[in-house]
């Protein structure tokens, strides 16, 4: 019974982890470009 919340949390966290593992290099590159663009050299 007290593990029921995990039926909601585990799929959501799994999707977040998988998304990060799959797209993190691209996201990081994009963020890096954005940061370099807005930060004073």
């Amino acid at each position, binding site marked *: *019974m*007290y593990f*029921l*919340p*995990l*039926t*909601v*949390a585990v799929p*959501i*966290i799994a999707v*977040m*982890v998988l998304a*990060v593992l799959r797209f*993190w290099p691209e996201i*990081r590159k994009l*963020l*890096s470009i954005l*940061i*370099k*663009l*807005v*930060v*004073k050299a």
Partner: protein
Amino acid sequence: MNAQNGKKAFPYERGFAWVLTFLLAGCLAITILSTLTVQILTNAGLHLGVATDGAVIDSQLSHIHANVDMLAEEYGFSAEAVKKIISREELLRVNGEIAAWWSHLLSEGDTATMPRWYSPDLEEAVASSMNRETAQMDPQTIVADLTEMVERTVFPLRETLLTTGMDLVNKRADVPGVVRSATKLPMLGLVMSLAVAGLIALLMGREMIRSLKYYGTAAAGTGFSVLGAMVILLCLGPKAMVAEASQPLAGEVGSLLGKIGWEAGLGALLLLAAGYACLILYRRKYGKTITGGDQTE
């Protein structure tokens, strides 16, 4: 619907209840996320708190003092005299002014020019401590360098890029109106959550108390998910990523994430507490008659 005689007024009741549970979790997550976004967009106190955070000011002060030492060695003026002018109190004042400007830019799309830092005593401090005969640079140029360095430390972003971007956005949208609408999102999320909770209660019919199992699962599940998202974000190290571009900005980002993280963490813990309170109540009601969680249905 009646659990005692085993009849259900609504077919696939449990299936629908679980779908609504996930929907409720989504609505609760939207409520938390939109609350944090609204905080960032409209809470001037939050930005002032970040800008005047003791750790941020200390980091800016040490960065500025290191640069003053470097410039003093290069141009031959007294670093101590300049450091007295660019004091902690002065930095707090400048940070406060720039935080107010930044808040207006974010919440109202106000593209007024960023407040500039200027101290009339700075030129005198530089000029009086320089050896004019060996000086390689005139005091005005050194003062301009120092002023730019202080401004860059306090606000490391390109303000012209931000104000130009905001000007373009202003031409296409009513920024204050959009922000005002965004402030209603948390309430909308809450109303949607209540509506979904109401639907679950309706689905349970006379034995509404059975809804507690679904409410508890959704609330505590959202709490776990928010905590999970925070751990993932922490592992990605956004502060270190910003630090690669600018150390002073990393301090401000760290302070902002810390303050927002507190609110998100508190919200997640409240959801966890509320969720498990629902599950405990449900267990107390049905615990003696069941061995699992679902046998009552």
